[in-house]
């Protein structure tokens, strides 16, 4: 791909078979939480989205991109940067951020066999139904009736932790940029952890 038109780069990168949109036009605090967890790797991409409005850069939309050269720093043109903080091109004022991770070299997740399938999670007193499958997760508020992958609802990606933590894995939800850090119970049938570092979330595996 050769382009200086960021919207085209955005479409192209999303369409790659090995790309994972970790966060889709999320706020700076949500992007910060993900990046601080070192989910992004060298060579991954961040896209800067100007929120449309009368003062928006170029009228709004995707106006800049950069590649990560470390888990938290980027390189870009046309203002020349190398190994600068990912917020250097733009802070959060008027911008949202899309994080594209290339998953071709993601290591296998040891807990995959345990996680595979449906789980009923409870967050803020509301049941959510999660489906895990080889690094990807889906959630829906509708109770599933079959054991198969629904490929409906909101999508996320889960990883082994890359920073020191007591959790077994973390999920990044694409649309919200939320991060859930979860541990598998000793019974291998329960999950518990925290949503965005604060609120409790817990659940159990469903038998379908």
């Amino acid at each position: 791909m050769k382009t200086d038109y960021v919207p085209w780069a955005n479409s192209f990168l999303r369409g790659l078979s090995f790309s994972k949109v970790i966060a889709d036009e999320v706020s700076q605090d949500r992007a910060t939480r993900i990046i601080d967890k070192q989910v992004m790797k060298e060579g991954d991409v961040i896209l800067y989205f100007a929120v449309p409005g009368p003062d928006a850069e170029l009228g709004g939309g995707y106006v800049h991109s950069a590649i990560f050269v470390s888990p938290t720093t980027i390189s870009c043109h046309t203002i020349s940067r190398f190994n600068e903080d990912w917020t250097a091109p733009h802070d959060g004022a008027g911008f949202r951020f899309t994080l594209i991770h290339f998953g071709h070299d993601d290591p296998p997740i040891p807990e995959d066999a345990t996680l595979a399938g449906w789980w009923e999670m409870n967050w803020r007193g509301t049941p959510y139904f999660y489906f895990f499958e080889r690094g990807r997760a889906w959630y829906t508020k509708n109770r599933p009736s079959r054991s198969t992958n629904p490929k409906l609802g909101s999508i996320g990606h889960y990883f082994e932790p890359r920073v020191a933590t007591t959790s077994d894995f973390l999920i990044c939800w694409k649309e919200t940029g939320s991060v859930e850090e979860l541990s598998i119970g000793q019974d291998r049938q329960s999950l518990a952890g925290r949503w965005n570092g604060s609120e409790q979330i817990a659940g159990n595996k469903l038998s379908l």
Partner: protein
Amino acid sequence: MSYSRDAAVDYARRNWNTNCHDGVISIIGGPIISVEAKKRQLGLSPSSDWKIEWMRKYRHSDDRGNMVEEQEAANFVGPGVALFLCRDGMA
């Protein structure tokens, strides 16, 4: 299609402070500059002997001899000499 993280980062490391394949640079507050067109305008030949290098916080004296600091600038670096390029595109 394969993707090499090392190759991507190496490309950034080699090109971050010069133009890459698009052949243009930009300095804060100024227009996009075509490197090859600017070389022709300045009579820098042969073209292959001159490379554009980006600079940060460049201090120089203005027409009245006062020191000014450019947030960004660029140099055309050639055989034994460098030509300063400021944000209005003039060397």
